[in-house]
C-alpha cells in the first residue's frame, strides 16, 4: 500500500496501461510536450514517444471524433479534454456518435474510448471555466460515466475504463488532484456501475460523488463529535447508477441528503432524490434534500464565487434540516 495523490494515481495508471497494451493511445491538447495542463500526463511523452502520446490541435469535436473512429478500428484511445467546459463543442461526437455506434449498428462494432476531463471549479476561474456537466453525459444511454473521489478509485476505475469496450466518460476534479490516499500496488480494478459506502452510519445517508464525497466525509467526521452518525455513499458511477446500494442505505438510516457540485436544478441530485423517493418512500422520515451549486454563471469575485459553490456549510445545513424531525440538533 502506497499513499499517493489522485494525480499520481492517474499518471501511473496511464503509464501502466500504455505499457500493457500497444493499442492504448493518449490524445489531447498539451498532454505531451507541455506535459498536461494539470500534469496528469507528466513524463509520458518522454517514456512512450509521440506515437502513443499525441498532442492534438485545439479541435475537440475533431479529435474526439477521430478517437471514436480509431476506436472502431481497434485502437483504445484515452482522450483528455483539458476541462469539461471545453467538451461542449464535442458533444455531437460523444452523444450522437460514440454512444450510439455499438447499439445502433446491431452490435457489430465496439468503441473502446475513454474521455478524461476534470469537472467543477477551483480558485477564481469564473463562469466559463468552473462548470459541472457530468449530468449531461449521465443522461445518455450507451455511455458509461464514472467519477472517482479517491486515489484508490481513480486508479481502479481508470484501469477498468481503459480495458472496457464501451465509451467511458471519466470525470476528474481539479480540487482532488492533490488529495492523497492509499492505493495497493497490484493490478486491481474497480467495477464500473457500482457505488461504494465510504463510511458507515446509522442516522442519515449522504449520497455524493467526486469532490463532494470528500466534503461529505469531512462533514461526517465533524458530526460524529456531536453524536450524529452519517453514512456516506459514494455514487462513483453515474451511469450505470447503482440504485440498490443507495436505496439500501436510506432504508437503514431513514434520512437522505444528496449533494453534487453541479447547479441545483436538473442536476445529478435530482436523479438521486427521485430514485430514493420512488424506491424508499415508506422508509423516509423526512423529505430527501438536495445540495447543489447556486444557480448563477459563477462570478469571478472571490467572495461571490465561494458562496456560490456547495460546501461543508451547505451540507451541514441540509443534514440538520433533514434530522430536525428526528432529533433537535440546532
Amino acid at each position, binding site marked *: 500500500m502506497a499513499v499517493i495523490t489522485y494525480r499520481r494515481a492517474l499518471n501511473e495508471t496511464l503509464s501502466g496501461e500504455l505499457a500493457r497494451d500497444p493499442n492504448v493511445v493518449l490524445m489531447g491538447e498539451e498532454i505531451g510536450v507541455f506535459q498536461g495542463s494539470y500534469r496528469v500526463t507528466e513524463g509520458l511523452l518522454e517514456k512512450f514517444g509521440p506515437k502513443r502520446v499525441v498532442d492534438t490541435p485545439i479541435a475537440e469535436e475533431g479529435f474526439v*471524433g*477521430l478517437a471514436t473512429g480509431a476506436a*472502431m478500428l481497434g485502437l483504445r484511445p484515452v482522450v483528455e479534454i483539458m476541462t469539461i467546459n471545453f467538451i461542449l463543442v464535442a458533444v455531437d461526437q460523444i452523444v450522437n*456518435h460514440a454512444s450510439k455506434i455499438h447499439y445502433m*449498428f446491431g*452490435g457489430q462494432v465496439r468503441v*473502446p474510448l475513454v474521455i478524461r476531463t476534470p469537472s467543477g471549479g477551483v480558485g477564481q476561474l469564473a463562469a466559463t471555466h468552473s462548470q459541472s456537466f457530468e449530468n449531461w453525459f449521465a443522461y445518455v444511454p450507451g455511455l458509461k460515466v464514472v467519477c472517482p473521489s479517491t486515489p484508490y478509485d481513480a486508479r481502479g476505475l481508470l484501469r477498468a475504463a481503459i480495458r472496457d469496450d*464501451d465509451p467511458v466518460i471519466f470525470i476528474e476534479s481539479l480540487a482532488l488532484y492533490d488529495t492523497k490516499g492509499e492505493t495497493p500496488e497490484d493490478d486491481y480494478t474497480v467495477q464500473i456501475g457500482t457505488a461504494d459506502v465510504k463510511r458507515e452510519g446509522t442516522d442519515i445517508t449522504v449520497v455524493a460523488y467526486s469532490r463532494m464525497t470528500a466534503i461529505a466525509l469531512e462533514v461526517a467526521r465533524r458530526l460524529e463529535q456531536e453524536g450524529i452518525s452519517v453514512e456516506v455513499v459514494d455514487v462513483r458511477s453515474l451511469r450505470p447508477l447503482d440504485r440498490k446500494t443507495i436505496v439500501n442505505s436510506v432504508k437503514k438510516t431513514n434520512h437522505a441528503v444528496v449533494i453534487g457540485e453541479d447547479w441545483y436544478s436538473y442536476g445529478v441530485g435530482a436523479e438521486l432524490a427521485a430514485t430514493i423517493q420512488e424506491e424508499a418512500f415508506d422508509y423516509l422520515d423526512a423529505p430527501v434534500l438536495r445540495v447543489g451549486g447556486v444557480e448563477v454563471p459563477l462570478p469571478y469575485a472571490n467572495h461571490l464565487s465561494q458562496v456560490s459553490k456547495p460546501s461543508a456549510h451547505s451540507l451541514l445545513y441540509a443534514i440538520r434540516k433533514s434530522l430536525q424531525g428526528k432529533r433537535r440538533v440546532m
Partner: protein
Amino acid sequence: MTNTTDTTHAALAFMDIEQHDLSNEDINDLQHYYYQMLLIRRFEERTSEMYVKAKIGGYCHLNLGEEATIVGLMAALQPEDYIYTNYREHGYIIARGISPGKVMAELFGKETGVARGRGGSMHLFDNDAHFMGGYAIVGGQIPLAVGAAYALKYQEKPSVVVCQMGDATTNIGAWHESLNLAGLYKLPVLFFIVNNGYGMGTPVSSASAEPELYKKGCAYRIHGEKVNGVDVLAVRDAVRRLRQRAQDAGEPAILDVASFRFRGHSVIDSDRYRSPDLIKKGREHDPVRMFAAQLLDADLVSEIWIREVAQRVEREVQEAIDFANSSPDPKYEELFDNMYATPVPNTPGSAEAVEAVRINRGEA
C-alpha cells in the same frame, strides 16, 4: 450573389459524358457496372414504393441519379478499404456487395437487416464489408472517417478510408477540423463529396462562400479535384488515382463529384425549389441510360442482354422485398441487447425489457 440557376445549369453541362475508349476495358467489368447501377436504380424505385406503402418508416433518402457515382467509387476500392457515408447510402452498401435483401430488411426494421433493425435507412452498417456506417447527423461521419484513417496509419495497414458526404456538409465545423487533422497527421483518407447542387433546398452557391468545393482543402494543403459523377468510368479512374496517392504517400484528397438528384431531398420532399426545366434537364443526364447507350454503341452488349439484366434486377429486388416481408421483427426481450459491449452491473436486461414493453403496450 451568384445566380443559382446559372450555376446549377453549368453543373449539368459538366455532366455531359465524354466518349471513353472502351477497348482497354474488361467487358465483364463494364457489364457488372451496368448491372450494379440498374440494381441500385430499381432498388431505390421500389424502396420509394415501399415507403408509400408504409413498409418503411422514418426518413428515407434515395440514390436515384447517383448510380454511376456509387458504382464508380466502389469499383476503385479494395476489400481492405473502409467506407463511411452519410444517410443517403442504400446504393453504397449494395454496391459494396451486401445483399439487397439484408438492406431492404433493415429498411423494414427487421431482425435480418444489416443493423438488426436498430438502425434503419440512415444507419446501414456491415463490419465484414468494412462499410462503417451511414450517419444521419450532417458531418458526423467525417471525424470518424479521419479516425479510421488514423488507426490504419497507426497499425501500418496499407488501405485507405473513403468518407462520403453531401455538398452542404462542407460548410459545417466538423469538416474543417477534420481536414486540418487529416492534413496535419497525413492520413490516408479520401473525402468524397457527392455534389448534387443542393443541401436540402439550398443551392451550393447560397451556402458555400467557395462554391467550387474541390478548392475547400486549400487552407489545409489538401489536394482537390472534380469529376463528372454521371460517368462511371471517370469516377472510378479518379478514385483509383487518389486512392493510390493516399495509400502511397499518406496524402488525403478531396473529390468533388458532380451529380444530379432525380428527386427531392427525401422521399417526402416535393422538390418545389428546383425549376421544372432544371429537373427535366437534370434527368436527361441519366447515368444508367447513358451507360447503356455507351455499351450498345460500342457493341459490347446487345439489346437482348440489356433486357435480360433488367429482368434479373427486377427479380432480385422483388426477392429482397419478399425476404424483408417474411423476416422476423426484432424481439421485445432483446430491446436492451448491445447497449454495452462490456457487461456492466445495474443495467436493464431482458426482464426489464419485457416489463417496459408490458407497461408501454397497456398490458400491465
